[in-house]
């Protein structure tokens, strides 16, 4: 077992980790990911560091690429339905909703009222889950594992609600084009209320332990600031934009599903730093909890769940193109669907917020930060790699 051997961190490749630049000796290339606990999901950041300061960061993605947009072109309209949710693992329902909405629009189908309520319910449940993952991740990236324990626990409780409602934990495959698959099971309201209370309790704990925490504030305040004039230039949406004080929320700007009938205000912040972004998301959870309560109280309990579809085995949709967006936990999520009159979509393009956040924006924010902040910064943009590369 002799012989010179080094391992490069986390399986980053020989191909892409050149030796220290001998000519200057000042810089060190450091790979963060893809096998790295400080990376969100399976992606990597190639850092060039000078001391503890990062002078350049390049995002590398593609480790999760499955070619979904190609696979969708091979499948019939109903067959696309089970695979879209896999595009974004932690919050799959937006894929189902956006896909269903584009298809319904192009095929001229209208989903029944009751289905719209259930869809909204599911999207809000998913939003809470995603935020819970984020809160745990944000604390974890700074070395506070205990928050992640609590938030993952309540996320698990929410997954239980998902499971009894949709029949699956992660990939729900519930929002069919034309409607939803089933109504609420018996006793769902009560168990949901219990879960919501547990979430609120946890949220209060998180506020005490994470947000009123001297060290946490020290690490996050003033770090990773996105100036407000960069918001649109870098395609920043969702909580990242709202933390900068812009009330950008698709739920308000382009009300979809039953949002017009619900009362809520988009949560905004002022400082646009890591702390504010975390805070905006925490308060957004409270909004979602409130929305779920409103939905449960107002939703119709009877009525059809699906519109009448043509025989899905030979379903053809006339030529057309459209774009439908929704406000997911990370920002604007949208499907751009093009049909050509055949039984298969011509092209489907998934617009995930992580695409711009993790690539252009992150690369812009990284230079000048400390190595120690890179992981937390990445988490604070709340990106999910699978939706970047699909």
């Amino acid at each position, binding site marked *: 077992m002799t012989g010179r051997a*080094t391992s490069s961190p986390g399986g980053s490749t020989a191909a892409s980790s050149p030796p220290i630049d001998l000519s200057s000796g000042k810089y060190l290339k*450091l790979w*963060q990911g893809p096998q790295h606990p400080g990376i969100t999901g399976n992606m990597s950041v190639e850092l060039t560091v000078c001391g503890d300061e990062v002078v350049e960061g390049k995002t590398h993605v593609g480790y999760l690429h499955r070619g979904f947009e190609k696979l969708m072109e091979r499948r019939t309209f109903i067959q696309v339905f089970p695979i879209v949710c896999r595009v974004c693992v932690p919050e799959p329902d937006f894929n189902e909703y956006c896909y269903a909405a584009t298809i319904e629009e192009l095929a001229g189908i209208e989903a029944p009222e009751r289905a719209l309520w259930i869809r909204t319910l599911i999207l809000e449940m998913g939003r809470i889950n995603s935020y819970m993952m984020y809160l745990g991740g944000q604390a974890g990236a700074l070395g*506070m594992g205990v928050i992640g324990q609590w938030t993952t626990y309540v996320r698990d409780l929410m997954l239980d609600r998902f499971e009894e409602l949709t029949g699956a934990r992660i990939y729900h495959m519930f929002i069919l084009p034309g409607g939803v698959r089933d109504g609420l099971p018996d006793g769902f309201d009560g168990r949901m209320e219990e879960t919501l209370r547990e979430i609120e309790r946890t949220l209060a704990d998180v506020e005490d332990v994470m947000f009123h925490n001297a060290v946490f504030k020290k690490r996050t305040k003033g770090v990773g600031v996105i100036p407000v004039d960069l918001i649109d230039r870098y395609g920043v949406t969702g909580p990242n934009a709202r933390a900068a004080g812009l009330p950008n929320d698709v739920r308000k700007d382009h009300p979809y599903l039953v949002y017009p009938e619900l009362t809520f205000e988009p949560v905004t912040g002022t400082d646009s730093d890591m702390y504010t972004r975390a805070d905006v998301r925490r308060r957004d959870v409270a909004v979602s909890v409130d929305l779920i309560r409103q939905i449960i109280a107002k939703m119709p309990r009877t009525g059809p769940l699906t519109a009448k579809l043509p025989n899905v085995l030979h379903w053809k949709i006339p030529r057309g193109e459209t774009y439908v967006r929704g406000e997911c936990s990370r920002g604007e999520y949208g499907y751009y669907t093009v049909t050509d009159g055949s039984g298969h979509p011509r092209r489907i393009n998934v617009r995930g917020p992580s695409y711009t956040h993790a690539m252009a924006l992150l690369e812009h924010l990284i230079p000048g930060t*400390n190595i120690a902040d890179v992981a937390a910064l990445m988490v604070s943009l709340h990106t999910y790699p699978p939706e970047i590369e699909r």
Partner: protein
Amino acid sequence: MTFDWMKIPYALLTLFIVLNYGLLLTALIQKIGARAGRRHGIPIWQNYVDLLKNYALRTHITHGVMYYLGPVFRLSGGVGLLLFVPSIYGSEMFSNLSFAGDLILALYFIFFGTLGMALGAGESGHPHAAIGVSRGLSQVTAAELPLALAVFSVALQYQTLSVTDIVAAQQGGVAHWTVVTNPLAVAAAMLSFLGSMMRPPFDVVLAPQEIPIGPPTEYHSSYLALMQTNRAIFPVAKMVIYMNLFFGGATSWPVFFVKVFLLYLFSAFVGVVFPRFRVEQSIRWFLIWAVPIGIAAILIV
């Protein structure tokens, strides 16, 4: 005073007890930490299994001599620290080799392991290890400073550098403990203690989220097992010093166990609920908070 050869088997016995206690203690503390996270955590014997597993791995590779020596240095630092301090006050059996050393030697041993680690990790050639080591050295230095000040303060207070004598001076009730008689020194030392236990907010050296595991990134199999052994012994040894210097030492094993446990719990108590500082933040923190207290302690004495 002639050397009593019987001290060697007794010292080994101490080592054995401390090792086992250390293994169980770390597991117990982990379990307690897990409770804060609302779960059960590892089984209490998990550390034994892990240790055995790591020793049982079939392959290991080396990056050179220093790489090999790193864990050995580290372990000898821990063992040395333990052996040159009396574990149980008043017990001939468990006074170990305390006749030979004094506080200065103990302080040296605390540092010794880190140095060995630095050399070994540097040899492993992994950038994470290199970064971790440079952070580790700077942070340990910063954290040692208040401890050193506190120790000097205590030494001045008791006018001796012998640990045994310091313990002796604290006998006779809580009121005699240094923690009461010289609270500033203890405060400085306890802050330093937080810094040296590799727990948040001062664990940026290991920082799994950015430089996974830091210095030991490349260590595995029996090297890792050696370090794990040390991880059971070293904190206990360090806490023995703290106990002896500030909390009246221990006159029997049960007292020893309880005091060490409480000391350990203190670091976990803080560690679980805070995120970690960046390295320059933690150094600044020590300089701003811990060092002045240490200086004040000396001044007051």
